[in-house]
C-alpha cells in the first residue's frame, strides 16, 4: 500500500479530452501546457478555469529557455505569471533548456553547454522568474540527441548545481534519463543516486523510438508518441524507493494516441511501480529505525 500521498496524472491534450472526462476517477491531476494559453482569448481561460475546478491542474511551460546565460524575456514571465494567477495550479514547471541565442529561436528545447556559466545563468533566470510570478518553477531535465558541446560538468552535477543555487525542486523525466543514458553512455540508476533526492517532487514518464544515425548506430528519440517502455517503470520504482517526498507522476503523450484503456493501463503500471518502490523504502526505513 502506498502511504506517501503520491499522485498520478496525465498531460492534458485536446485529442484525449473525451477519454479524460470519462475517467476522472482514475486520474489524480492534469498537466496543461502553459504556452498553449499565453495569448488565449478570455473564453479559453474561462474553460481552463472550469477544468481546474473539476480536477487539480499543474501548468507546464516549454518556451522560456531558463537554463541559459541569455536573460529570460520579461514578457514570457509576465504571461506565465498571469496564467498562474488565473488558474491557480498546484505548481508550475519549466525545462532545463535553452531555446534561443543571438536573437534566433531554436523552436524547441535544446541542451545548453553544461558549465558553471549556464548554472549561474539559470540561477539568475530562476530568481527573476520567482520575483515576477511569485513562485519558483519545478525544473525538468531534458532529453538530448547531442552531447552538448563545450560541457565541463556531468549532467547530474549540472542539474544538482542549478537546483542548489536556485533552491528549485526537480521534475525528473525518467524517459529523458533513460534516453540520455543510452545515447551518451551512462547508467540511469547511478544518475538517480547522484541527483539530490530531497529535491525530487515530480516525475514524467513517456515513450520514444530508436532512430538510425548516419553511421548506422542508433539513438533513442524522446518523441512522446510511443508507450512507456519497461525500463522507465523500473526507474520509477527506483525513484520511489529513493525519494522521501510525495511524488506527482505525469504520463505524457503528444500524438499517435492509443485508446484511453491503453493510457489507463500505463497509469496503472505506474501506480504499481510506485507502490513497489515505496514498499522498498518503508522496509529500508524500518531497518534503519
Amino acid at each position, binding site marked *: 500500500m502506498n502511504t506517501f500521498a503520491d499522485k498520478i496524472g496525465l498531460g*492534458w*491534450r*485536446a*485529442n484525449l*479530452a*473525451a477519454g479524460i*472526462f470519462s475517467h476522472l476517477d482514475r486520474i489524480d491531476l492534469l498537466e*496543461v*501546457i502553459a504556452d*498553449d*494559453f499565453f495569448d*488565449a482569448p478570455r*473564453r*479559453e481561460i474561462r*474553460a*481552463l478555469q472550469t477544468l481546474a475546478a473539476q480536477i487539480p491542474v499543474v501548468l507546464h511551460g516549454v518556451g522560456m529557455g531558463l537554463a*541559459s*546565460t*541569455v536573460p529570460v524575456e520579461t514578457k514570457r514571465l509576465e504571461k506565465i505569471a498571469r496564467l498562474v494567477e488565473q488558474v491557480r495550479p498546484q505548481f508550475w514547471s519549466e525545462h532545463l533548456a*535553452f531555446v*534561443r*541565442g*543571438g*536573437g*534566433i*529561436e*531554436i*523552436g*524547441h528545447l*535544446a541542451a*545548453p*553547454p553544461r*558549465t558553471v*556559466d*549556464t548554472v549561474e*545563468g539559470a540561477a539568475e533566470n530562476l530568481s527573476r522568474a520567482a520575483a515576477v510570478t511569485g513562485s519558483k518553477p519545478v525544473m525538468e531535465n531534458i532529453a*538530448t*540527441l*547531442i*552531447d*552538448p*558541446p*563545450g560541457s565541463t560538468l556531468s549532467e547530474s552535477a549540472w542539474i544538482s548545481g542549478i537546483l542548489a543555487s536556485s533552491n528549485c525542486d526537480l521534475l525528473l523525466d525518467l524517459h529523458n534519463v533513460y534516453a540520455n543514458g543510452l*545515447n551518451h553512455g551512462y547508467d540511469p540508476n547511478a544518475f538517480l543516486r547522484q541527483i539530490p533526492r530531497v529535491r525530487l517532487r515530480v516525475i514524467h514518464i513517456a515513450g520514444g523510438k530508436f*532512430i538510425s*544515425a*548516419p*553511421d548506422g*548506430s542508433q*539513438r533513442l*528519440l524522446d518523441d512522446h508518441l510511443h508507450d512507456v517502455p519497461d525500463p522507465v517503470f523500473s526507474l520509477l520504482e527506483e525513484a520511489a524507493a529513493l525519494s522521501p517526498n510525495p511524488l506527482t507522476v505525469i504520463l505524457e503523450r503528444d500524438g499517435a494516441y492509443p485508446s484511453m484503456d491503453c493510457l489507463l493501463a500505463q497509469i496503472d503500471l505506474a501506480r504499481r511501480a510506485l507502490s513497489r518502490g515505496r514498499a522498498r523504502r518503508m522496509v529500508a526505513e524500518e531497518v534503519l529505525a
Partner: protein
Amino acid sequence: MSARAFEAFLTRIYVDAAARARFKADPRAEAQAAGLSDEECAALENTDWIGLEMAARSLACKRKLNRKNHPRNSFSNTLENLFTTIFARFGGN
C-alpha cells in the same frame, strides 16, 4: 568572448544547415570567425558530430510540427475532438 556568444553559435549550427555545413567542414575556422576563444574553439572541435546532425534534424521536425499545429490544446480544439468522438461512437458522419 562570453558564454552568451557560445550559446548563440550553438543556436546557429542547430537551426541553420548552411552554417552547420561550414562548421563541419572547418570547425576551428568557423568558431574563430564567430569570435570564440581558443578554449571554446577546441571544445567545438570535439563536437559529437553524429549527435549534432540528429539533433538538428529533430529540431527541424519540431519546428515544422509546431508551425502546423499551433495552438494545439485550446478548448475549441477540445470541443471539436469531443464531437468527433461522440459522432464516431454513435455512428454519425
